[in-house]
C-alpha cells in the first residue's frame, strides 16, 4: 500500500513545527535561567561590537562632519569613495582582513587572526563608512542651515565646529546607532576572521549559524531572541532620536 501523496510531507511539517515549539520553550528557559553559554556569547558580541563602534565613531563622526563643512579639491571624490565603501560586501571585508592578518600577510606577526581583535578590525572597516556617511548627510544639512548666521556672527572655526557638533548631537548619535545595528547583526566577515571558536571568538551571529547547522534550535533561537531584542532597542532609539529631531520642522 502506498501512502497518500503528500502524507510524508505533512508529517515532516508537523515534526518541524513541534521542533520549533520545543526550541522556543528551551530558548525561553535558557534566557530566564541566564544560561552561561548564552550570557558569555552575548557579552562577547557586545564587547566586540561596542569596541568597533567606539573606534568607528571616533573616525567616522569627525570625518563626516569635516566633509560637510570643509571645501577642498577632492571633496566630491572623497564622498563618492565613502559611499562606495558603504556598499562593500562584509564577506569581502572578511576575506581582506583575513589575508592581512594571516601568518604570511603583512600583519601576520601580530598573531591577531582568530581573535576578537581581528573581528573588531573587520567591523570597524564595515561600519566606519556607514557612520561617516550618515553623519556627513545630516551635518551638511545643518551647516547649510547655519552657515550665514555663523559667518555673520563672526564665529571662529572652532566655535563653528563646536556649535555644529552640539546642535547636531542627535544626528551623530543616530549615525552611531545605525553603525551598531549593522555591526551586531553582521556574520560573514567575523566568521571568516574570528573562526567562531568556542569560548574565544564565538558571538551571537556566528553561534546562531553554527547551532542552526547542527540542528540545536534551542540555543540558536535563544541567541536569536537576544539579537532581535538588541536590534529592536537600537531601532527604537534611532526612531526616537530622529523623531525628536524632526519635530522642530513642523
Amino acid at each position, binding site marked *: 500500500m502506498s501512502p497518500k501523496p503528500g502524507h510524508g510531507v505533512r508529517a515532516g511539517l508537523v515534526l518541524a513545527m513541534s521542533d520549533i515549539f520545543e526550541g522556543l520553550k528551551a530558548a525561553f528557559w535558557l534566557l530566564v535561567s541566564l544560561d552561561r553559554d548564552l550570557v558569555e556569547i552575548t557579552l562577547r558580541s557586545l564587547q566586540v561590537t561596542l569596541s568597533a563602534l567606539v573606534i568607528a565613531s571616533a573616525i567616522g563622526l569627525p570625518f563626516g562632519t569635516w566633509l560637510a563643512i570643509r571645501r577642498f579639491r577632492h571633496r566630491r571624490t572623497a564622498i563618492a569613495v565613502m559611499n562606495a565603501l558603504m556598499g562593500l560586501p562584509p564577506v569581502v571585508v572578511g576575506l581582506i582582513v583575513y589575508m592581512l592578518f594571516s601568518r604570511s600577510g603583512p600583519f601576520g606577526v601580530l598573531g591577531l587572526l582568530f581573535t576578537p581583535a581581528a573581528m573588531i578590525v573587520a567591523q570597524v572597516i564595515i561600519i566606519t563608512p556607514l557612520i561617516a556617511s550618515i553623519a556627513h548627510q545630516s551635518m551638511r544639512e545643518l551647516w547649510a542651515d547655519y552657515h550665514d548666521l555663523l559667518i*555673520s556672527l*563672526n564665529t571662529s572655526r572652532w566655535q563653528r565646529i563646536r556649535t555644529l557638533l552640539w546642535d547636531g548631537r542627535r544626528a551623530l548619535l543616530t549615525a552611531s546607532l545605525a553603525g551598531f545595528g549593522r555591526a551586531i547583526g553582521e556574520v560573514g566577515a567575523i566568521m571568516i576572521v574570528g573562526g567562531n571558536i568556542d569560548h574565544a571568538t564565538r558571538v551571537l551571529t556566528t553561534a546562531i549559524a553554527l547551532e542552526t547547522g547542527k540542528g540545536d534550535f534551542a540555543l540558536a533561537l535563544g541567541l536569536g531572541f537576544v539579537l532581535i531584542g538588541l536590534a529592536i532597542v537600537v531601532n527604537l532609539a534611532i526612531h526616537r532620536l530622529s523623531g525628536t529631531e524632526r519635530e522642530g520642522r513642523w
Partner: protein
Amino acid sequence: MVETILPLVLNGAVVKRRGKRLIGPIDAEISRAGFTIVMGPNGSGKTTLLRLMHGLERLAEGAAVWQGTQIDVQKRQAYVFQNPIMLRRSVKENLAYPLLLRGAPKSTAAQTARDWAARIHLENALEQDATMLSGGEKQKLALARALIQKPDVLFLDEPCSNLDGRATREIEELLLETSRAGTRIVMATHDMGQARRLATEVMFMLHGNLHEFAPAEHFFTQPGTVQARAFLKGDIIE
C-alpha cells in the same frame, strides 16, 4: 576702539556669481546717522547689496570700506536674514548665543537673554525650541538676537515680509526705538507704507544697480527717474 565704524563707502563694488554680474558697480556712502531703506522690485539686488555691505559676499571688483580695525568692523554689525535662521536650541539659548561667543559669563548671558525675551514678549517661551516658534516670533527672536549684540549698524532683509499687521507693528516699533538710540539701520523692504514710515533715506535698486539714492522726503515726493516714479505708483517695471 574707534567711536564708530561708519561711514561705509562703496567704491565701484561688484558682486558676481559664476562670472555673472549680480549687482554693481555700486558707488555709495552709508553716512553716520539715519535709517536707510533699500527698495526695488524682486531680483533687483536688494539682498545681495545688504550681504555685500555686511561682508557676506566676496567683491569681484571695487571696494567696501569701513572705518576702524577689521575686528571692530566685524563685531559692530549685525544682520537679520529674510528667513530667520534659528539655532536648534531654546529661545533663551538663541538669545544668549552671541553673548557667549564673545565670552560673556553664563549667568550674565542668561539674564540678558531673559530681559530681551521679555522685550519681545517671549518671556513665557524661554525654554521652548526656537525652531517651533511662529514666523512672527522667529523674526522677533532673530531681531532681538541681533540687537543683543548692541551693534553700531544693523542690516535687515525684509524682516516683515511674511508677518501680519500686529507683528509688523511690533517690529517697526522696536526698530524705531533702536534707531533713536543711535543704531544705524539699513533695511530692505518692498512694503511701500513701511518704507514711508521708517526711512530717512532710500536706496532704490533696479537690475542690480543703485538706480537712485536720495533722502526719503525727496524720493517719495519727487523721484528723480521714470522707473522710480513708476515703482512708487505701483506700476510693474521691467
